């Protein structure tokens, strides 16, 4: 089975976020990049587990500049077989999805796995967009994936609760918490990653339909009002009359 895992870089979750150039650019000074946690912990690790149990090949793909390669090497160290980088800035989810779909269409992957969202833009749209380009079914917010031949059984979160679904390959999924557990790469993996293939492909022409005009920081909170444990009647009163939330 051929797996394609889409990965994106993201600022380390402890990063303090800040902007430059009149709040139009993300300030990368001092930022440590990691693999977007949903892509790494859930999508990548589950693909590796399935490859280990039933055979196959795991390719990772990212849309980004050369500076993203250390993050890609980490995915190879965790166990992916090869990497593909589309040499372009990932500025618009439609553009990113189009690039990934163009590559995937040529390679006949059985399962395309994405994290459910990135922690920088939280849009949760690239998986649906890739599925649209390829005309594949999409299982979004999947928490479990098992395969038996060309039939996959998944669990997903939905408005009514958890659903179990069956789908034939090929398909696209977005992975949520529960699908797998984080893996720490070992020394052997890190050494092997250095020589694994990392192919660089130039982007295919594609329209960009959105652009970030500016960023904004949340306004600071007013001072916290402290109450004593014995003043819970007052707290309820404040929540009702002052905050008006109950």
């Amino acid at each position, binding site marked *: 089975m051929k797996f394609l895992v889409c990965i994106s870089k993201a600022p380390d979750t*402890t*990063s303090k*976020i800040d*902007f430059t150039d009149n709040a139009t650019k993300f300030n990368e000074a001092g930022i440590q990049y990691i693999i977007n946690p*949903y892509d790494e912990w859930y999508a990548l690790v589950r693909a590796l587990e399935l490859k280990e149990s039933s055979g196959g090949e795991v390719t990772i793909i990212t849309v980004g500049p050369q500076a993203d390669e250390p993050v890609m090497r980490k995915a190879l160290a965790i166990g992916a077989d090869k990497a593909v980088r589309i040499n372009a800035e990932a500025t*618009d*989810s*439609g553009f990113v*999805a189009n690039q990934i779909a163009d590559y995937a269409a040529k390679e006949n992957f059985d399962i395309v796995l994405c994290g459910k969202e990135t922690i*920088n*833009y*939280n849009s*949760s*749209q*690239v998986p*649906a*967009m890739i*599925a*649209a*380009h390829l005309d594949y*079914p*999409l299982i*979004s*917010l999947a928490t479990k994936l098992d395969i038996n031949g060309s039939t996959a059984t998944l669990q997903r979160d939905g*408005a*009514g*609760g*958890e*659903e*179990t*679904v069956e*789908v034939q390959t090929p*398909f696209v999924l*977005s992975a949520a*918490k*529960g699908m797998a557990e984080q893996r720490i790469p070992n020394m052997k993996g890190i050494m092997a990653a250095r020589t694994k293939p990392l192919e660089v492909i130039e982007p295919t022409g594609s329209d960009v*339909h*959105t*652009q*970030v*005009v*500016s*960023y*904004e920081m*949340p306004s600071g*909170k*007013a001072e*916290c*009002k402290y*109450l*004593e*444990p014995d003043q*819970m009647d007052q*707290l*309820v*009163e404040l*929540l009702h009359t002052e*905050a008006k*939330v*109950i």
Partner: protein
Amino acid sequence: MKALVFADSKDGSIVKSSFEAISYASKFASEVTVVTYAGVSDDQLSALGAYGAQKVIKASSLSDNDSQALTSLVCSVAQSEGSEAVVFSQDFTGKAVAGRVAVKLNAGLVSGAIDYPDTSSGFTVKKMAFSGKAFAHVKITSPIKVVSVLPNALGAENKGGSASVTEFSGQIEGSKVKITQSAQASSGGAAPLPEAELVVSAGRGLKGPENWGIVEDLANALGATTACSRPVADIGWRPHHEHVGQTGVAIRPNLYIAAGISGAIQHLAGVNGSKVIVVINTDPEAPFFKAADYGIVGDAFDVLPKLTEAVKKFKAS
């Protein structure tokens, strides 16, 4: 501008986040059409006029929420209606369908909008970025705009009125996904976390899963949904779907009560969209107090039952 809104339903009723999406569209569009599916009564659909819809188109024959089937429905209606904007709620279904529709309509998409579009120079939408640590203003440059609205961000305005209801007559692509089992959400009668208005959350300060009764008592008294911090979900005290924070569910309820959670930056990122935050912690130096509106320095085992009693007294009065 002509807008089309996708409305989702659950157990035969249109969901609250769809009222918000319709209300959102009516703020910038002169004509609002709603497209929906499955068995919702015509009376309920007509009542969507109260939120600003003029027309509702329903596909009664379509019963499941597969993204391919819904995409073909929404695109077909968008084309026949000449829609210039398509609005979704950024809920479970919206996350699966909005991106698909944007691709098929060759349109730009902003997902997770938290304010109405600024149309003074083009069409610019404000959304959360960096998991709630910042906001981004994103301009859509394509002729057709697709927007998905974050649940509970803007509310729904009921202005009264009714909409016409017609049956969809086109073709819908078949679903390739077979649902073999559906389990009801375990949040009981409470709203699912992303849509909840009131949330009671607890962390390691509760010392063990056997102590969650006092958290549930407060949630029940308020009619709130329960949540937890990441360590608590990771060690299995609480189910993963209750984990709120940067790598869990991001929420923006009206009221967030956090007991025994110190307030690490990753947790704050997932909850700082909350309108009002109440923090209960034994440590006066807990970073969460800096993000709180109301703080109680005290033991959750002492404070939570007292707060529950106070809420019950308030509700009874």
